[in-house]
C-alpha cells in the first residue's frame, strides 16, 4: 500500500511518501497506526497523540476501525488549516 504524510507528520517522520507491506494481521487503520509506531522513534513520536492525526483512505476521511488493504492510498496528516 502507498502511505502519504503531510505537514508536521511529514517533517517528523522524514518522508513524504512510501510503499509498505505491513505484516499479516494489519487489517484496519488502527492496526496500521500501531504497526507504524513500532517502526522507529520518528514514527512513534509523530503518531503518539492520535487526537491530532487525521487519516484518509483513498482520499476519504476514515476512523481507526476502517479496513485497509494492499492497493490502498493511505494519508496521515494533522487537522487541516486551510482557508
Amino acid at each position, binding site marked *: 500500500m502507498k502511505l502519504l504524510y503531510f*505537514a508536521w507528520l511529514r517533517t517528523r517522520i522524514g518522508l513524504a511518501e512510501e510503499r509498505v507491506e505491513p505484516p499479516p494481521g494489519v487489517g484496519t487503520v488502527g492496526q496500521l497506526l500501531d504497526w507504524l509506531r513500532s517502526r522507529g522513534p520518528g514514527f512513534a513520536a509523530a503518531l503518539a497523540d492520535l487526537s491530532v492525526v487525521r487519516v484518509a483512505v483513498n482520499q476519504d476521511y476514515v476512523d481507526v476501525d476502517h479496513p485497509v488493504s494492499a492497493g490502498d492510498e493511505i494519508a496521515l496528516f494533522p487537522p487541516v488549516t*486551510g482557508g
Partner: protein
Amino acid sequence: MIRVQREPFDVGRELAALTEGNRRIGGVASFIGLVSDIASAPSGSAPPIGALTLEHYPGMTEAKLAEIEAEACARWVLDASLIIHRYGRMEPGEGIVLVATASRHREAAFASCQFLMDWLKTKAPFWKLEETAEGAAWVAARDSDEAAAERWSPPSA
C-alpha cells in the same frame, strides 16, 4: 467551479467571469481570505509573519472542494459558484482563497458563501506553515473553526 493553483487570482476578473452571460443572477456574495501578518500562536509577543506556505494533498483537495461545492448547490438554489484556493508560498496581503456564490436572491448567496468557507476550513486538506523571524511553525487547527462548520447540519445524503 473549483480551482487549486499556485498563482495569485484577480478578484474582479473572477467575479466578472462568474456572472457573465447569466442575466438571472440577482446578487453575488464573495469572501477573500488574505495572508495576515499576525501569527496564529497564542503568545502575545509573537513576531509578525514574513510569509506563509500552504501545503495540500493533490487529488484529495480537488475531490473535497468539489464535494463541498456540490453540497452547497444541493442546499441552496445557486446560479454559479466558485472556489479558488492557492498553495505554495505567499506574503502578507496576498489572497489565499476566494469563494463566491451567485443567486437570484441575496439570502442564498450570503448563506452558501459562509457555508462553503466554514466547511472548507475543516474539510479541505490544506496546512499552513508560518515563517517569522523566530523560524517556521505549523499552524494548529482551531476549535472555533470546528464549531463554525458544525453549526451547519450534516449532509442529507
